[in-house]
């Protein structure tokens, strides 16, 4: 999956690998079929991109139920607007743009500034059991919680670039298209986001490194 994601990322930068070349063609073909009214083709698009879209939206808003609703909204909007997609090979970038807009609209509507997490949220960073696990490794589920809360404390721009670059493995060029920000700003935000994340989860990474 990782290789596939990186292959795709490379492909959309104009450097397709053999596997990706086939994938690009099939993506373009799927889009053409959807435009011709083929519902099955859209189902395939959904199956290919639903997980990363859902994950991305969840990383942005931190609410599972809302993330599912917004993921549905993303694909409905995509279905409606597919006729306007200029470059079929940029389907995933386009989908993520829609998802980003949906997430941002939700954040505005909910009026929740995740940067203002209450101080008692800090408790989530503490291990329930202070006794180090064998070999000092965190249990995955606790790591998940730690990362989730650390993400929640990033401001929106940093969270956006961190999610897209580190978690979704997108290229800077793709992220620039999705966010509308310059590559320079993205690099700066990512550098700061990494530093903040490192600060928040670093103490728990000692056994990992």
């Amino acid at each position, binding site marked *: 999956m990782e290789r596939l994601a990186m292959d795709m990322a490379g492909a959309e930068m104009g450097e397709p690998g053999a596997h990706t070349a086939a994938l690009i063609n099939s993506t373009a073909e799927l889009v053409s079929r959807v435009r011709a009214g083929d519902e099955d083709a859209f189902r395939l698009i959904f199956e290919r991109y639903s997980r990363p879209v859902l994950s991305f939206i969840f990383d942005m808003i931190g609410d*599972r139920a809302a993330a599912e*609703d917004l*993921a549905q909204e993303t694909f409905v909007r995509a*279905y409606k607007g597919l006729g306007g997609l200029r470059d079929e090979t940029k389907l995933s970038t386009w989908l993520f743009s829609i998802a980003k807009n949906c997430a941002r609209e939700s954040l505005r509507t909910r009026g929740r500034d995740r940067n203002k997490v209450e101080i008692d949220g800090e408790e989530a960073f503490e291990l329930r059991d202070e006794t180090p696990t064998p070999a000092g490794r965190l249990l995955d589920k606790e790591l998940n919680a730690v990362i989730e809360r650390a993400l929640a404390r990033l401001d929106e721009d940093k969270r956006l670039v961190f999610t897209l670059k580190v978690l979704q493995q997108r290229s800077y060029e793709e992220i620039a298209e999705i966010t509308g920000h310059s590559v320079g700003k993205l690099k700066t935000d990512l550098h700061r986001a990494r530093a903040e994340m490192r600060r928040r989860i670093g103490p728990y990474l000692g056994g990992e490194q």
Partner: protein
Amino acid sequence: MRCEDCLPVVEDYFDGALEKDEANRVGAHIAVCAECATALDALEAEQSLYLRYDRGLEVTPALWEGVRAGIARLEADDERLSVQAPALTPLAGLRGRLAMFFAALTLRPVFASSLALVLFGVVLGALLLRSIDSPQSESAQQQQMIADGGSALSTTAVHPEPVIQESAEIETVAATAVETKQPAAVTNSPSEVAALSSNRDSRRVNTINASASTTEIEEELPDPDHLELADAELLSFARQQPSEFEDEAARASRLIGPGEREVARHVERAQALLRSFRNTRSAEGVSSANVAYERALAQRLLRENLALQLDAEEAGDKTTGRVLDAIQPFLRDIANMRDEPSRDEVRSIKERMRKTEIVAALQVY
């Protein structure tokens, strides 16, 4: 390369964001530098940790069902606008195109005819107003002609459809003659002439003419042969029956209501906007288009369109509603364009306009 040059860019190197040459230099340095290699290893360890991040999300069948439901809602909305366009024969006329586009089973010929009459009346009225002077200035011309002692007018010189101002003058002359039993000189005071020129009862004038002729009153009407060309034209226009045009326009206006006129004007403006947008061209070598004017106009028309849609819905006017629904997506897309959209964005909208033949369809409407 030194560490102080490498460490600031090791993240970019890790992210694959360096130019090829610089990446090679950094890679070569890292191969021989423990400190920079450690920094790179830390980044890789972080990345592997993040890749283990499991959000606990599952793409369930319910998610797809939700998407399907959303699409079904979309299609239900679109079905109000969709038209099953039958194959057009070369002989398919204007009527057929309108019926197909708006999915109307029958046309409203009365409405179409009335609209045509209104437009005709508006255009003619505009021409008339531009060509005819105001009543006051025309009466002033009449005053001048009278004061100059223009040629004697005879009853026979009276146009079968006499000029209103002339008629008023005749009425005055006749009235004066009746009172004084003298050949009346056409020397009414300017105020009287001005007052009388506002009287537009030509039939009454004919009666007066007849009675005037029986009293052998010398009537003075401007002799067209002695008028300047411009005055002759004015006289010619004045001799027409303005009331006829008014009646025509009034009749047409009565056939359609003010609401429908508003819709017709809105549709006309929307059509003009779409035509203007369709004809926009980007300058050679420029990747973006300037549609600022169209965008501003679309924003205004979009608000108008929404208000008219509500009115149509309240009135149960489905035909008008369909027209406005057809226009709305184009107005919305143009209104929401960036300051300098790319040519591809503009082309996409133009392509949709071409496929739906929206400009032609609005013209028919």
